[in-house]
């Protein structure tokens, strides 16, 4: 009756627009949604921040607000019938944080009782967090106002967490329910690995994710009898929940359309007002669709292949010559080699599976099968309001559903056993789906030699070390996660040819007695892991220059030294002392050489350059080698030249002759951080990545490739549009296992190109020393062929998209090298 009276009252004032109503409705299944109904706008909820207080006793005393009374009638009627349950909508958080309109606030204090109708099994160990990101945030280091790491909404801005088992109970009329549970936090929580199980009835779902700024949504079905509906949280580390929704079949379509769909768009993409500013850039044109055969039409898909170095976008059309491919590859024992095919669905396809049988000595379980995930990515690092849909992550899958007209690319990598015997082998890949089955023949030639590594070259990478997060973790599960993650990532680097990573010493300025404090044990653990995985070369060691500067200047110098001022002489002396302290420990522990890396990418302004002269002089005064990330071709850096031992620069510049001459004259090394093929500004130069890592590197005269960075994330690691900068390069699976992107695979292929070249160079040298005339002749022939390849390289400072060899050519040039290895090898064996 109260409901009816309220409705009538509202209808009587329907022309007055927004209206505030005091008082409320006693508990009951439809009360939460009725108490705070949504505003309709073109069929969607308008998502407004509500500020209603926590209900103390049922819903009595609650104040609520809405602006469309007519809707309330509809909403109320949905709830009105006896025995019918409206959606149960709960938004977990603090007493003061926002509540999604139409939801009921749940704080850690809301313990279940029959009167309350909903709440926690126990308040013990529960905590709430709230951090809203609804506007730009200031970054003083960069001097900018930037987008926040994520854009929150009333559901995601707050949460309830627990470190022990608990349950959320709600009293609902008997019946069948669907549930939607949102789990995540808007806090950074960088040192937290969430690992917990959510259980409803007999159904369990495990949730794992590292850190905050991300959310998982779970769906369950439940049958309610006379007992409360129970959602159980069982942590291995901690659990977290933002919202719980439960509804019956009657409301399913409406909940999906009016609550879940807008919530997911907001949470996993962007708020509607922000998203309206973003524009999609078109895919590259790919020409018309070739004629489709009747057989393809009947099975509902076209199957084709393109070289893996060529990006296939959601709507890339095959060429006639791409259709119904046979895949051919050659490789050496121990090598990994990619292959791929693309399915272009002519209609929606369900139950997609890809399987493969052994190909000769390569067992099926050593052929990794992944699906290329399309992702919305910015066209450059900090660009806002423009995005492209690009192929990016290579992810495992059990079964997929494919949408008509949208390509699905399947990326397979054959990992050859170390003892794989030479020969040519056949196999096949089977693609099955609701439309039918297709088979893709595979031919693999295994060559009778192994590739050699060049000890004179280094393949490294910048790296955010998971060990740095261990100290902040307050549970053993998280600590073990970070240890395991670091181990898996090091192994992944090695599997991709990378055996060097940038580290940092950390450390604060000297105390009053002139002593420095470092976490040597942490560094020792990192170097132990480095050694365990056979990492090589000097270690680029970041040091705390900014801290020492801050001690003397009372402020930080900002990104790229944008605000640097001339420090007193004591600054330089203390920096020297700091480097000496690090050096002393390094020598005591027998660690590899450190290259001292005091400042990243200094600007070209005179103040920055003058400062860098002092910094580099101070480092060198400790008797060490210095490392500088700056372009040596910029004349402004000329004053730094006498103090830099290792220049690390983005392009392959200066040219080979200059590098070789400078290295010979002054023992200066040139390293390259090719961020243009890392995703920082473009996720698509896959062919450029292979060229950079192989033939281009060989031709450049540089000693090292060390791109920034193994994985970069801002905000949600799977949302490349949130935050100030774009996310790029490798991702991770929920348990921390590395999840590669196409360019990372191309790094390995470039690295292998280089190994083929190096192997041939070594064999030529051996054959030239041979007493066998045939071997010496073979060496000369091989040298001519290698010169042919050398001269065919179109030398560029940055191999990205333009002026590259075609993707097919890269394999032919590799084969030219491989063929000479076979010939020289044969001549030596005769």
């Amino acid at each position, binding site marked *: 009756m109260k409901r009816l009276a309220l409705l009538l009252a509202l209808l009587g004032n329907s022309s007055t627009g927004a209206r505030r109503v005091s008082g409320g409705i006693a508990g009951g299944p439809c009360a939460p949604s009725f108490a705070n109904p949504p505003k309709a706008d073109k069929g969607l909820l308008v998502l407004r921040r509500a500020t209603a207080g926590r209900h103390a006793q049922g819903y009595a005393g609650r104040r609520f607000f809405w602006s469309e009374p007519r809707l309330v009638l509809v909403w109320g009627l949905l709830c009105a019938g006896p025995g019918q349950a409206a959606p149960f909508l709960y938004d977990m958080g603090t007493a003061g944080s926002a509540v999604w309109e139409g939801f009921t606030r749940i704080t850690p204090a809301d313990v279940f009782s029959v009167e309350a109708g909903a709440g926690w099994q126990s308040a013990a160990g529960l905590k709430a967090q709230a951090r809203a990101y609804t506007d730009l945030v200031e970054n003083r280091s960069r001097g900018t106002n930037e987008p926040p790491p994520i854009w929150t909404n009333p559901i995601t801005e707050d949460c309830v967490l627990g470190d022990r088992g608990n349950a959320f109970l709600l009293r609902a009329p008997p019946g069948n329910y669907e549930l939607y549970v949102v789990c995540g936090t808007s806090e950074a929580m960088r040192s937290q690995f969430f690992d917990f199980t959510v259980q409803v009835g007999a159904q369990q779902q495990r949730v794992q994710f590292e850190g905050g700024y991300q959310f998982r949504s779970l769906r369950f079905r439940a049958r309610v009898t006379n007992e409360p509906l129970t959602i159980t949280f069982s942590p291995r580390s901690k659990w977290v929940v933002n919202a719980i929704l439960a509804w019956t079949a009657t409301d399913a379509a409406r909940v999906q359309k009016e609550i879940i769909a807008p919530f997911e768009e907001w949470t996993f993409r962007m708020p509607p007002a922000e998203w309206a500013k973003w524009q999609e850039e078109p895919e590259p044109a790919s020409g018309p669709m070739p004629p489709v055969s009747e057989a393809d039409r009947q099975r509902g898909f076209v199957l084709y292949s393109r070289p893996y170095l060529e990006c296939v976008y959601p709507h890339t059309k095959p060429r006639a010559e791409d259709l119904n491919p046979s895949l051919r590859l050659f490789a050496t024992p121990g090598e990994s080699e990619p292959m791929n095919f693309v399915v272009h669905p002519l209609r929606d396809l369900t139950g997609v599976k890809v399987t493969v049988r052994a190909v000769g000595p390569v067992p099926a379980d050593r052929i990794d099968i992944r699906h290329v995930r399309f992702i919305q990515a910015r066209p450059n690092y900090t660009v806002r309001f423009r995005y492209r849909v690009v192929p990016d992550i290579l992810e495992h899958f059990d079964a997929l559903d494919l949408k008509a007209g949208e390509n699905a690319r399947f990326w397979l990598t054959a990992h050859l056993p170390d003892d794989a015997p030479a020969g040519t082998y*056949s196999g096949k890949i089977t693609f099955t789906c609701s439309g039918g089955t297709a088979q893709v023949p595979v031919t693999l030639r295994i060559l009778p030699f192994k590739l050699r590594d060049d000890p004179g070259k280094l393949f490294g990478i910048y790296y955010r070390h998971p060990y740095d997060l261990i100290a902040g973790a307050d549970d053993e599960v998280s600590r073990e996660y970070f240890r395991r993650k670091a181990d898996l990532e090091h192994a992944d680097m090695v599997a991709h040819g990378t055996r060097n990573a940038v580290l940092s010493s950390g450390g604060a300025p000297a105390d009053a007695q002139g002593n420095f404090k470092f976490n040597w044990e942490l560094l020792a653990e990192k170097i132990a892991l480095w050694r365990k995985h056979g990492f090589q070369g000097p270690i680029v060691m970041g040091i705390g220059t900014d801290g020492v500067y801050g001690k003397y200047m009372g402020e930080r110098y900002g990104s790229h030294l944008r605000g640097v001022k001339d420090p007193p002489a004591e600054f330089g002396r203390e920096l020297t002392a700091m480097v000496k302290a690090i050096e002393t420990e390094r020598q005591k522990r027998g660690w590899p050489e450190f290259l001292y890396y005091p400042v990243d990418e200094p600007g070209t302004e*005179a103040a920055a350059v003058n400062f860098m002269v002092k910094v580099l002089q101070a480092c060198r005064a400790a008797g060490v080698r210095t490392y500088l990330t700056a372009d040596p071709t910029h*004349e*402004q850096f000329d004053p730094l030249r006498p103090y830099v031992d290792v220049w690390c620069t983005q392009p392959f510049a200066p040219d080979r002759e200059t590098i070789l001459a400078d290295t010979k004259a002054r023992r200066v090394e040139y390293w390259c951080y090719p961020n243009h093929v890392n995703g920082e500004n473009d996720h698509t130069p896959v062919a450029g990545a292979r060229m950079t890592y192989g033939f281009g590197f060989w031709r450049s005269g540089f000693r090292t490739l060390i791109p920034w960075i193994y994985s970069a994330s801002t905000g949600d690691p799977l949302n490349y549009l949130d935050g100030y900068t774009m996310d790029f390069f490798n991702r991770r699976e929920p348990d921390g296992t590395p999840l590669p992107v196409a360019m990372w695979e191309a790094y390995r292929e470039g690295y292998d190109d280089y190994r083929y070249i190096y192997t041939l160079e070594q064999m030529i040298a051996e054959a030239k020393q041979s007493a066998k005339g045939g071997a010496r002749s073979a060496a000369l022939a091989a040298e001519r062929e290698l010169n042919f390849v050398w001269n065919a390289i179109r030398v560029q400072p940055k191999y990205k998209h333009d002026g590259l*060899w075609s993707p097919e*050519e890269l394999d*032919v040039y590799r084969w030219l090298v491989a063929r000479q290895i076979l010939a020289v090898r044969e001549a030596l064996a005769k």
Partner: protein
Amino acid sequence: MEKRVLIGPDSAREWSAAESTVEASAGRAPGGKSALHWHITVDHLAGEPKYPIGWPRIQRGLKDTARDWSGWDFLLVRILTETSRAALPSEPVGLTLYTPDRNGALNRPLHELRKGEWTEIMIPLAQVPRHHDVRQLQFHIAEAKYRHQDQLDFYFDEVALLRYAEPTLLDFAAESAVMFADAPQIPVRFQLAGVQPEASVAVICELRREGRGAVRAEVTATRGTHRTLLDVKQAKLPSGEYELTARAANGSTVATANVRLVESPWKGRGAGP
């Protein structure tokens, strides 16, 4: 070649300049003609407050009637560079051709420039995605590439559009200069110039070895960039060096390119070790 002068030396007043000056300069162009003179004193301390190390530039909008370059093949820019420096940096000047959308624009570093020399730069208009709607030209430098107080003087003789008077093939090449010999097709790319926008001509491509034709194909092509396939499946070509030739009907020049066919790793190899 046919030519249409877009911007001559007398257009100084039509340019707008930032952090630099532009004026006509008598007698600086070859033959004693006038030139457009763009002067920059590099200043790392002044200019736009937020970017004291900035981008001095000159730019000029194009009238409606001058925006459609689709019937032309090249943009010609002839520049003399003088400077107080010993030499120019690797990217001394940038040229931007603005179109209504960012993706259709062209940014082209003019790395060909040399101190004290007249340099002629021909930019293929095929590189400008929206060459039918070019709204503005801009020349700029990045002060970060220069030293404070460097003096730069650029003299533009003319900026013009050029086109071939008869069908001509440009950038003719095999998509891959090396291929496996058992490849069923050889993809070939070329750009057809010297043809009116609506017209088409026959283009004959041939693969030759040791002076003899091995495979021949004829395609009908319009002005612009093309990709075609030479079907070599039936020819069972041996490995070796081949020459590709192409000629447009009514064209007087023959375009050539080389392709090397390499015996494939899988040739004649049955399954098994």
